[in-house]
């Protein structure tokens, strides 16, 4: 990482190493260290044996690194009567994640688009109510939602949990897309209307292709929130669809049992891999100039 500062940055216009750029890299480097410190502790802890953790410094490197905790976390850790590690429920997590993310982002994008370009009557009441509701702790919703979903026979089903995630994702998704689209040039939209485009045509042909960066943000928010959710999955998904985080929680969150910190750290990092991959891969949509190009074209 220290070498990067010496290399010439890519980009259309090669830049020389000025004092400003050195300062810039220095700031990013210091920030990186700050952000990485807890991860470092987690990583070295996950590679130590329990006696070494109990009796040594948290910053010390493992005297004899072991990957046993990772294996235990993945496939052997006992949670109750079963000893199958956190891999149990991995597929369930995807089963919940994919439809929930698509549905909540889709609905949010459509809302944002409708509210900022079409401005339907009373549309903003939807947004303001959603935003106010977003300030209430989720846990308060549990009881009413259980009653409502069991009334329509969706309690403890996959569609039930997908609906719950959509409900809680909606305020932020709507706000996110609405504020992004609001900043888009209105000329673009007018041009689409002049060409005779309808509501859906303009959305799919014109607006959505220009939403790259904000889709990334939406994806980051929703993938993280839904993937890491444990309480809703537990209560609304039902036995057949329990997400992986229920297992993670069971591994790391005992009150009176013996704690295996090394396994806890490994399990936490393993569970976070999916959102991390999404962050990294979706980053390529973080590109400049789509909007600019489209306006001129």
């Amino acid at each position, binding site marked *: 990482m220290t070498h990067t500062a010496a*290399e010439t*940055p*890519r*980009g259309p216009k090669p*830049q020389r190493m000025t004092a400003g750029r050195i300062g810039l*890299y220095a700031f*990013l480097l210091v920030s*990186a260290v700050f*952000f990485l410190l*807890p991860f470092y*502790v*987690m990583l070295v802890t996950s590679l130590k044996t329990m006696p070494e953790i109990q009796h040594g*410094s948290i*910053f010390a490197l493992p005297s004899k690194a072991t990957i046993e905790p990772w294996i235990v976390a993945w496939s052997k850790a006992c949670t109750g009567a079963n000893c199958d590690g956190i891999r149990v429920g991995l597929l369930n997590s995807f089963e919940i994640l994919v439809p929930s993310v698509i549905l909540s982002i889709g609905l949010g994008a459509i*809302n944002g688009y409708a509210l900022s370009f*079409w*401005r*339907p009557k009373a*549309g903003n*009441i*939807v947004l*303001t*109510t*959603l*935003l*106010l*509701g977003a*300030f*209430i*702790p989720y*846990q*308060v*919703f549990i009881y009413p*939602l259980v009653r409502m979903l069991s009334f329509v026979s969706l309690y403890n089903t996959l569609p039930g949990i997908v609906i719950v995630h*959509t*409900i809680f994702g*909606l305020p932020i998704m709507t706000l*996110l897309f609405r504020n*992004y689209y*609001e*900043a888009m040039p209105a000329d673009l939209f007018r041009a689409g209307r002049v060409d005779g485009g*309808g*509501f859906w045509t303009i959305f799919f042909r014109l607006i959505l292709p220009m939403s790259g960066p*904000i889709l990334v*943000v939406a994806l*980051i*928010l929703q993938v993280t929130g839904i993937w*890491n959710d444990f309480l809703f999955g537990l209560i609304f998904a039902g036995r057949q669809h329990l997400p992986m985080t229920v297992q*993670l929680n069971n591994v790391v969150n005992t009150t009176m049992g013996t704690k295996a*910190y090394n396994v*806890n*750290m490994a399990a*936490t990092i393993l569970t*976070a891999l999916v959102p*991390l991959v999404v*962050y990294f891969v979706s*980053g390529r949509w*973080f590109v*400049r100039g789509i909007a*600019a190009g489209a306006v001129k074209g």
Partner: protein
Amino acid sequence: MKPRRLRNVAAQTALIPSWLIVIFAYIGTIAWTIRISFTSSGIFPHYDWVGLKQYDRLFDSHRWVVSVQNLAIFGVIFIVGCLVLGFLLAVFLDQKIRGEGILRTLFLYPYAMSFIVTGLVWQWILNPTLGIEQAMHAWGWSSFSFDWLARGDRAIYLVAFAGIWQSAGLVMAILLAGLRGIDEDLWKAARVDGIPAWRIYLSVVIPMLSGMFVTALVLLGIAVVKVYDLVVAMTGGGPGISTEVPAKFVIDYLFNRQNVALATAAASVMFVAVFVVVGPWLYSQYLRRRPGEAS
């Protein structure tokens, strides 16, 4: 424009699912919460009427008062910290630097990790006998002292600090998305005119990002009002009750202490407070008809 109303049918139809969610899930829950706050419910909601009894108890509770004060301290530090750090990171990442993808993921990773365990790690790092203080002593700096976690009047700052660590990356991502939406021509024009970059950021870019700042601010505001995991994992509300927060009050009474009525009373007060503080702003932003809107 005449066909506007006709086309609006499609827009209205598109909003139907959201209307259903708003009416049933949100308005329904809010009404239910307020109703239950006037009862004597324990684990299960039941529908008697005890007037303002729960509210009397709530405002009489020392813990609630402490919680509200902490929320203010936490909120200011957390929001300002996240916005400043997030903005700086976004701007610096936007300078065509090497390894942007890796750095971006690195600043974002805290957001992806379950806070049960990352909170524990922060506890270790900040613990005087395990973490930084101990490491400094081991390296020979024996007078180094950092015991904020054990001090009732300081621990809340550390919770805010860990919160910034967790959420600044998200603000960075939101603002970066906004920066990437800004026209390349702006920079070319500025370069030609010889205007220093920081002035452009201050007087042109920040105003252009206002929508993104609002999004980030609302997101952080919601996180502040609902802060729970962070406190549970970092301090458990301690030392004593010195880092308690309102959402933790609600959740403790809802589940552990089996007093749904008091929990809903606290939630209702939170809702009304948010309504009073955010309501006027929401009204001016989203409900008031702005001049020139009736295009």
